[in-house]
């Protein structure tokens, strides 16, 4: 039982990383119809920014500010390179972000080294909260808390602010939103930035848990795709739940049958695709 809980909880924490990444990806897919392969790259950048700036800003400062730095990089990328590709075959934006992902990974390797670096977290976060459930450390509680708060904040923005209304409406029918006088280019840029911000946050949180390596981005972005497919394209809550689901499944599997811990994620995806092709909470006919 202890082992099952241990695996499930480990998986839950990783699942929160997947969920954050998948949320950001979903936002961008919804409004810009771009699969941002570079999401993993921005996530790694967030982590490495925090690693570099932690001596100056402290842990909390970098946790707060570095996602924003990543977000600004994201907005520059969107304005400069993605924007000219709107309205063209979606293949091109895929390839563009694909190229960017390769460049970011290579640059991170060149600047910070291929070996990977440890990311220090405050000591008081490292100790277990409970003696019986030794695996529940303060940091893991923090990860879950921050992610939950961020997600609730995001849903609140989407639900209650004018920006959120525009984003939701634009996801459903961008043309109508544009004809009502909304600057959709600005809207897409802001939305893109929010997506990258989530990735940067995931990067910093994951850095404290898993350490930082240049390839971390590509190893976390694939499960995020799966999370979106499992949860259903077009549903943010679906992406979130999909991420948690596959995280927990992988965590439990890794306790009993470690070799299958990655494959089980894709097996779940295949099962969902066969039984319910639109995903758990997805809408029919989106993005097609």
């Amino acid at each position, binding site marked *: 039982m202890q082992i099952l809980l241990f695996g499930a909880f480990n998986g839950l924490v990783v699942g929160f990383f997947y969920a954050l990444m998948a949320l950001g990806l979903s936002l961008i897919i919804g409004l810009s119809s771009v699969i941002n392969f570079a999401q993993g790259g921005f996530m790694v950048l967030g982590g490495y920014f925090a690693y570099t700036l932690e001596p100056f800003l402290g842990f909390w400062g970098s946790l707060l500010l570095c996602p924003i730095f990543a977000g600004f990089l994201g907005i520059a990328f969107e304005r400069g390179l993605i924007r000219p590709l709107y309205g063209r075959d*979606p*293949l091109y934006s895929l390839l563009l972000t694909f190229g960017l992902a390769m460049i970011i990974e*290579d640059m991170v390797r060149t600047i910070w080294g291929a070996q990977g670096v440890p990311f220090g977290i405050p000591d008081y976060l490292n100790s277990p909260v409970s003696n019986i459930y030794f695996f529940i450390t303060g940091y893991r509680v923090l990860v879950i808390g921050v992610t939950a708060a961020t997600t609730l904040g995001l849903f609140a923005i989407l639900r209650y602010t004018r920006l959120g209304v525009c984003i939701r409406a634009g996801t459903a029918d961008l043309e109508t939103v544009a004809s009502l006088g909304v600057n959709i280019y600005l809207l897409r840029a802001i939305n893109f930035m929010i997506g990258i911000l989530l990735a940067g946050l995931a990067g910093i949180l994951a850095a404290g848990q898993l350490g930082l390596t240049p390839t971390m981005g590509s190893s976390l972005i694939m499960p995020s*795709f799966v999370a979106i497919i499992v949860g259903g394209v077009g549903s943010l809550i679906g992406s979130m739940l999909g991420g948690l689901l596959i995280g927990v499944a992988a965590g439990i599997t890794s306790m009993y049958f470690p070799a299958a811990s990655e494959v089980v994620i894709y097996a779940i995806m295949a099962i969902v695709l066969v039984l319910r092709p639109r995903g758990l909470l997805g809408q029919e006919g989106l993005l*097609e």
Partner: protein
Amino acid sequence: MTNPAYFLGIRPSAWHALRLALFWLVLIFAPFWLPAIGSYTDLGTRVLIYALAAMGLNLLLGFAGGLSFGHAAFFGLGAYGAGLFLRYVGPNTWLALLSGIFLGGLAATLVGPLVMRRRGIYFAMITIAIGQMFYFVAVRWNSVTGGEDGLSGFQRAPLGFPGGNAIPLTGTQYYYFVLVCFAIAVFLLARILSSPLGHSFVAVRENSRRLEFLGVRGGRLIWIAFAISGFVTALAGSLDSMLNNFTSPLDLNWTLSGIFVILCVLGGMRSFWGPFLGAAIYVVMQDYASSITQNWMSIIGLMFMLVVLFFPRGLLGFIPQRRTA
């Protein structure tokens, strides 16, 4: 742009035949002129292999309009199929090739139904994720596949013929073996694309709804295209593992899938020979870049971005084509 045939005073179809003959002559004599310009034969072999993979993918990508970002899976499965056969069963190049083709091709055929009803970026996302599934199987199934380190410990065997004759496949002989495989596959691809089936692939790409109104099931056509391109890509993969006498999980990774797509786009994915041009440029450039800098991944990434921003129609997209399909 006036067709060069005009200046030569020949009919356009004769000009087309002339170009094609010239192309094959260049390929046939590659083992002679490649060393002469300071290159090596295996590089030519690799160009053929990557070109084959890209042309196989392009049947789906450029003609049927399926954005597959997972074709490295079938390439890699082909590579593992051939490698595993040579390592565990016996030294027989024919059977190794067949097992590679069937492992990759059957995987594509089985995966097809999962993706065939999807279009656009959703198609891309599912294919890339399914590709990663095979990647992790190769990485984690240590005892059979050699895991992260890749599968080694096999050698391509001499090519046996009935009657007891066998041709040893050293560098140059292996080039010609690959060239023959390439020629057969390309001939089949061209035949398929100029058949009614090939035309209906283009129809799915252009207007699948209209096709449905005509009573044709677009999804099934995508499935067929997916399977065919999977078989061709798997053939390329088997040839690749026998070229290197080695195969690694990187042969199944999504980065390679993306590279196959960019090969098609770079050369021109609406033209039959475009992917070949893309593959030739890529293989030569990668060979050169990785010899001068550690950062060749950035260079490839930059190539992705430059192609998208400046050559979206591909290099052959600028040259008026005689329609092959």
